[in-house]
């Protein structure tokens, strides 16, 4: 029985896929074809993430920032995992991202309260249940 070079094919596909996902041009490929395919991969990944966590679309610059994140980090598991990994990465620079992580902590039951300044919303958790209370107007104390 002929021995198939699966390992060689695996390495080749891994290299090309890695290049596409990180925005690197794989050698020998047509530039427009690479851009089109890489674009499809990125748009699909962003779609999975925002489907898993629709609130992401409410954060300013989320889509553009996610493209930066995606080029540096391969997808981790499902859309939910990828969304959380993105927020964790973004939280070092973004107050709304940090607030969304606090909200997720309430949803997970790891935290009792979270205030979301960008949404003017208070999230309260109790056991497995949580409530989101919007505030129409917030006045800061002097």
């Amino acid at each position, binding site marked *: 029985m002929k021995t198939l070079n*699966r390992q060689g094919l695996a390495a080749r596909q*891994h290299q*090309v*896929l*890695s290049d596409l996902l990180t925005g690197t041009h794989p050698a*020998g490929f047509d530039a427009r074809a*690479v851009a089109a395919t890489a674009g*499809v991969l990125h748009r699909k*990944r962003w779609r*999975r993430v925002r489907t898993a966590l629709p609130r992401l679309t409410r954060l300013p610059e989320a889509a553009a920032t996610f493209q930066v994140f995606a080029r540096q980090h391969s997808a981790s598991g499902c859309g939910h995992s990828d969304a959380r990994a993105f927020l964790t990465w973004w939280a070092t620079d973004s107050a709304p991202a940090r607030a969304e992580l606090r909200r997720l902590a309430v949803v997970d039951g790891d935290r009792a309260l979270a205030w979301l300044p960008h949404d003017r919303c208070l999230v309260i958790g109790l056991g497995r249940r949580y409530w989101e209370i919007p505030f129409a107007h917030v006045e800061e104390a002097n």
Partner: protein
Amino acid sequence: MRPEQNFPWPAGVGIGWRPALSDLLVELAGQHRLGFSEVIAESIPTKNSFEGSTEHPLPPGVRALRTAGVPVIPHGVSLGLAGAQRPDPARLATLAGAALALQAPLVSEHVAFVRAGGPGLHSDVLEAGHLVPGPRTRESLEVLVENVREAMDALPVPLALENPASTLPWPEDEIDEPDFLTELVERTGCWLLLDLANIEVSCRTNRQVGGGLPDDAQTWLRRMPLHRVAYAHVAGGVEHDGVYLDSHAHDLTQPVLDLVTSLHDLAPTVGVLIERDDNLSVANSRAEWELVDAALHTAHPTGEQR
């Protein structure tokens, strides 16, 4: 274990099942206007068929189609048969389970890879999140043939494989797409799910990169192994940064509808299924059904009946 009773082979005009379109599909089935449907196999909750399970919690809309006598084909998206790895037994069991749950006459998947393992034993596996066309070389074809044979052995019904939207010609490609697919079906005995929108994508891409091969979609269609087509797909597309993509979110284009007519001329019994994943609306889907039905009625069948 084979299903006790299978629905007939797909024919006529079909529409891919989506929750938003469920009521429309039931309505069309009641009017005898829905030839068949298709559902993403991984979305069907099933137990492992080989454990002898009986009832499966199908979505009510899908169950209604079965009750109405409409064939529903499970369409897998996660096997990655064009990848280097052997097909995953658990994913094959999912596909098999879906076939049994739906009493489907066949299942379908893709000639594409969806993940790639690294060169080392402990290298990360990259998930593409997309059906990526692989290189078309003698070596990759041997791997694909072996994978397909293994998949066919594990499935209780015939397997049809969809031609990819080849937006990414590989520099090492040795075989053009029609010849690659023809050899695949002839060596394995699998069927072809002929995606007409993907033919349009592949041809346009080939033209843009100067592949030197016939770049006319009608010519490509005639070079495909039409005697082995189980059913066909159509979908809308859009040009993005100068490249035509099968978006599954835009209107059907005339060149793709012309391919429907040509396919019906050549293979009159082949059913055609409309795929749409985004910008879903009942109005859009009704209009698309009318367009595809009209395209079929424009045809002058000369091909052999299956």
